[in-house]
């Protein structure tokens, strides 16, 4: 693979041509198939797509938490602060996990250990990564609980996860992620398991913390509404590949890939006249063990032409920073919208 020159100085994470595969009984699944994207210091980037498109696997690849031996990273680079994480040993990766890159998971109900106090679960990372004494770690835990808006920290730290509601548990997960002041937080569907009202609270909290503390955030989601409000830049993934990228504003104003268009049409909106029903994307996500030749989205695409069945469209620049992987990208209907008004 071609080595590129040193990354731009403000690039915190630079994923280049990442390939992650899983060996299953049905054959090799290319969960992440040559994906490149980056995150700058302090910014919020979104990775959007349906279930099984490779979003979560991308995040786990960065953390070095792909389950072996079924899953393995077969190519590419993950440059974090300029050095390749894929070349690190397991012990070096352990020192990065939680310290430099922290992760918030989808299921707050099951992602906290039920038999350990919340305090124990927040303090352990600081004790290991920062060499905090129990007292220092405790003080830090009180501090991060304050940051995520959990009152009465001293009492709460002695409690167990089952004594917290779903939204509160996700706050705890964020508190754990923040405890060692990482440079980057990977949030894998952080609000999917929560009530709609709580979703907005959690996302506002993450956005606010990201601004105040300068932590870069990668939000993985299937909800383009989330992306509109909270992300600076967006990468849309389909079947292991990035099909469209750009700033949130660009993507909302004029999506240049039929899949993005479909995703946007399937989100209810308040700024448009009430339509009779939402327009879902037809069909199912493809079976990754036997992808069709050409563009993976073709079987579900209303704009497909003959060429789509033969050649995989490359990710090419459309305008500004917007890129799209579609042969028909210039012929798609224009869809005007202001991103700020899209509800979360």
């Amino acid at each position, binding site marked *: 693979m071609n080595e590129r020159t040193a990354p731009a100085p403000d690039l915190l994470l630079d994923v280049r041509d990442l390939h992650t595969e899983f060996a299953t009984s049905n054959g090799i699944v290319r969960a992440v198939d040559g994906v490149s994207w980056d995150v700058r210091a302090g910014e919020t980037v979104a990775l959007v797509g349906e279930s099984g498109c490779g979003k979560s696997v991308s995040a786990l690849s960065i953390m070095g938490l792909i389950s072996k031996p079924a899953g393995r990273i077969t190519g590419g680079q993950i440059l974090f602060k300029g050095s390749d994480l894929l070349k690190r040993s397991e012990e070096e990766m352990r020192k990065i996990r*939680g310290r430099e890159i922290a*992760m918030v998971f989808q299921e707050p109900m099951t992602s906290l250990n*039920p038999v350990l106090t919340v305090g124990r679960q927040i303090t352990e990372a600081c004790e290991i990564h920062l060499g905090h004494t129990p007292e220092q770690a405790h003080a830090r835990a009180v501090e991060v609980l304050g940051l995520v808006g959990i009152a009465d920290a001293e009492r709460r730290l002695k409690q167990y996860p089952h004594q917290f509601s779903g939204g509160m548990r996700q706050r705890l997960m964020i508190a754990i992620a923040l405890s060692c002041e990482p440079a980057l937080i990977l949030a894998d569907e952080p609000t999917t398991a929560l009530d709609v009202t709580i979703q907005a609270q959690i996302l506002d909290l993450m956005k606010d913390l990201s601004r105040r503390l300068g932590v870069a955030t990668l939000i993985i989601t299937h909800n383009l509404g989330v992306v509109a409000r909270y992300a600076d830049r967006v990468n849309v993934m389909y079947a292991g590949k990035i099909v469209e990228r750009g700033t949130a504003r660009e993507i909302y104003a004029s999506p240049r890939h039929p899949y993005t268009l479909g995703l946007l049409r399937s989100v209810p909106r308040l700024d448009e006249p009430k339509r009779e029903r939402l327009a879902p994307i037809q069909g199912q996500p493809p079976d990754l063990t036997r992808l069709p030749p050409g563009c993976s989205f073709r079987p579900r695409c209303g704009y497909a032409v003959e060429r789509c069945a033969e050649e995989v469209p490359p990710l090419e620049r459309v305008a500004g920073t917007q890129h799209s992987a579609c042969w028909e990208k210039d012929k798609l209907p224009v869809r005007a919208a202001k991103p700020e008004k899209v509800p979360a």
Partner: protein
Amino acid sequence: MLRFVIHRFLLMIPTLVGVAVIIFLLLRVIPGDVVEAKFMSGEGSGVSAEVLQAERARLGLDKPVWEQFAIWFWGVLKFDFGISMWTGGPISEEIELRFALSLQVALMATIVATLLALPLGIIAALKQDTWVDYAVRIFSIAGLAMPSFWLGILMILGFLIIFEWLPPMIYTPFWVDPWQNMLQLIWPALAVGYRYSAVATRMTRSSMLEVLREDYIRTARAKGLWLKLILVRHALKNAMLPVVTVIGLEFAFLLGGLVVTEQVFNLNGLGLLFVQAISRRDYTLTQALVLLVAAAFIFVNFAMDVMYAWLDPRIRYR
């Protein structure tokens, strides 16, 4: 937590009373009684009905059942289990040494089983589907397949043939000579403990495998914790719940259920006493033994409940 413990403790009382009533009634339902067993075994003749009747009267068996129960139960409340209907000796004396012996073997076997099962189960789970895992599984299946009395016979023969040595065959209480005592009891403890570890090993392995797939283990890994810390702090405590159940129940079972293995090692434990007491229709002794073993079961259950609560706060706070 304290309230939980007290609550569970008090629940033991009605259970024990229930056991007392049932065993008392059941024994009286079985055909034959201690007097018949004593005088009519073997030849079965030569004793007149009057003699039998007089003997029944002497033992109080001519009284109405409810009265017999009341007398016996009043004694039990004062920890007086009466005298054996067969030997005439006080029951506490009959049981004392044998209980000490059986309890010691059961405890030692439990320790052996735990020391084998936990490390083996954990390592098998960590190395799932490698040769280590297969080796552990073969070892534990072999344990299940071999009865412990047979393993005991093999041990004794092995010592005799290879080392020309026999473990002591006369029981010495621990407080008299610990070394001699251990030299005798370690072998049955190993034979029984190995078999007992098989179930616990497999339980540890499957429980650990299940826990290692949990989301909170992924969270712990994402925090950058050491593997050892993840195992000890995050996985083990969660994985222990079913293992505690298996070990606890097996322990209670060992107290009274080691009849054949006790024979092999020439141990005069509760198991043999149990068989004798029942075949002789020794009502008072059987009642005392059943009550003792039931109390052990109930107490082990209580201890397990407390252990659960300690392991899992969700139980504690309910």
